[in-house]
């Protein structure tokens, strides 16, 4: 806290200051207020510097992907792109559906049934992002002849996460099932993702 003495400008008559009762707290207030306001200014100017790193408008532009299902035979899968990320579309065989249904849901790391991961009446169409929930590699298994891992679904070669026929995490470091994006059936053989 400044004293009256410190508030007197050099060369000024000190008695005037003492007599007029200049309050040194007023100068402290102005000082603190000025520095605080400069601090607010500095803080605000940081915001655009941080915000510029967020996804730009063109990246955010909502893209939808149409998928033609008619060419995918049971047991086959395709890889396509949805918002610059790989998308897996798989036509499950009855055996694969049965295998997924046979697993007790309570035993799963991320408990979900195949019904919850597909659309009603379209239980054979398993549509997921092809992004491992561990660290984002593309799991193998959608392409012809790729390693589908010990649970017959997808297998991530990066750190050994294994997904089952419903693309649910069963083994390895990944915490969640492969993500199911929003999608709707626009006809029996076409799907609009996004």
């Amino acid at each position, binding site marked *: 806290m400044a004293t009256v003495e410190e508030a007197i400008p050099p060369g000024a008559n000190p008695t005037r200051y003492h007599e007029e009762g200049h309050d040194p707290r007023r100068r402290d207030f102005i000082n603190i207020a000025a520095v605080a306001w400069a601090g607010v200014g500095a803080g605000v100017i940081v915001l655009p510097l941080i915000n510029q790193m967020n996804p730009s408008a063109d990246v955010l532009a909502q893209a939808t992907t149409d998928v033609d299902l008619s060419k995918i035979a049971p047991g086959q899968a395709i890889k396509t792109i949805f918002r610059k990320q790989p998308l897996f579309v798989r036509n499950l065989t009855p055996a694969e559906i049965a295998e997924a249904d046979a697993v007790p849901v309570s035993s799963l790391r991320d408990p979900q049934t195949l019904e919850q991961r597909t659309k009603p009446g379209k239980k054979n169409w398993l549509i997921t992002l092809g992004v491992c929930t561990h*660290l*984002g*590699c593309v799991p193998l298994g959608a392409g012809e002849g790729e390693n589908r891992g010990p649970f017959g679904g997808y297998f991530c*070669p*990066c750190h050994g996460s294994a997904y089952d026929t419903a693309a649910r995490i069963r083994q390895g*470091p990944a*915490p969640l099932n492969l993500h199911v994006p929003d999608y709707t059936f626009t006809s029996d053989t076409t799907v609009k993702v996004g």
Partner: protein
Amino acid sequence: MSFPWAKHYEPKQPLMRWLDEKLPLPRLVYNSIGAGYPVPRNLNYWWNFGVLAGVALVCQIITGVVLAMHYAPNALVAFGSTEHIMRDVNGGWFLRYAHANGASMFLFVVYVHIARGLYYGSYKAPREMVWLLGVVIFLLMMATAFMGYVLPWGQMSFWGAQVITGFFSAIPGVGETIRVWLLGGFAPDNAALNRFFSLHYLLPFVIAGVIILHIWALHIPGSNNPTGVDVKGEQDTVPFHPYYTAKDGVGVGAFFLVFALLVFFAPNLLGHPDNYIEANPLSTPAHIVPEWYFLPFYAILKSFTFNFLWIPAKLWGVLAMFGSILLLFFLPWLDSSPVRSASYRPKYRVFLGVLLLDVLVLGYVGGAEPIARNVIMGQIASMYYFAHFLIILPWISRSERPLPLPTSITEAVLAKHGETAHAEPALAH
């Protein structure tokens, strides 16, 4: 800041006297790395590696600045511009190979430099700040090396960026938002490549700045030495120049010999062929591994394959990996032994050897396929890594009985040559 017997800078030429009055930069250099800095007389060749790290940084900055004259940080053309450097730019292949292998050389000499510090207790009082700044430099180097590896926009570049930024998605709640913010998109793309280039160009200069602080902090107590015994008098030291400039010169020669062997005869030995395939967001390379210098940390990341204490495996892995480096910040206080040099610490020496072996095992596991045998080996090695710093080191630093220390550096040096300290009275004034 230095010993009282340090030589004083006395410019003889009028021009140097004039400069010393206006801007005493030559004086600063003289007192930092010239004859004005007294250094223990018994430093061995392990003390070369700090200077070598500085040399490596200079090489990286020079080759990097000229590479940036030819490289284009745009996802559409980045891979092509890298190939353009390799094929079309005059001597471009040399510049790029020197820069890529220069990174390996830099990390290698820094690892030796760190191991030197661990063996001779250079992290202990009064040099804690030197060590802390060193860990900061190491972290900055890792960030710089990672972002540089992304720039060629090959398959390993792309998937390395995907995996490493994926670490941040493990943070509960806000992780995915942070990851998207870092990348400027939902997957690595042009926005990420551009910002990585910007930061990759910036960080080496930040490293250079922290190195100045590192050397400044070192010069306050002065250099450690192989006995770990404090300097007692003038007879214990020699001036940095010409004694250690000459000794470091030998190391610099050896450094460039190895560097040249890599660049000219095995330029791709330490790289991955997958990085000569252009980035493809739809196909992960079958075997994705980081560069050799990150493998031990990558092994720790991979070792957490199960949820534990309500924390998911993924978060454990990321915490452990960052923890394994951040742990080094606490080292000066985890080791409470007053004896610095492991030469006089029979137990610590053994366990430090085991730790070195352990890090090599981690390095092997980091690069190996995630099959059961390797995962278990990685888990044991990771546990040992943490146990060394958190259990073994605090325990042995209290329980071990150190060997008798020499009373001075001079005594240790003369004993080595079969003489006693009194045999050389000329030095002992």
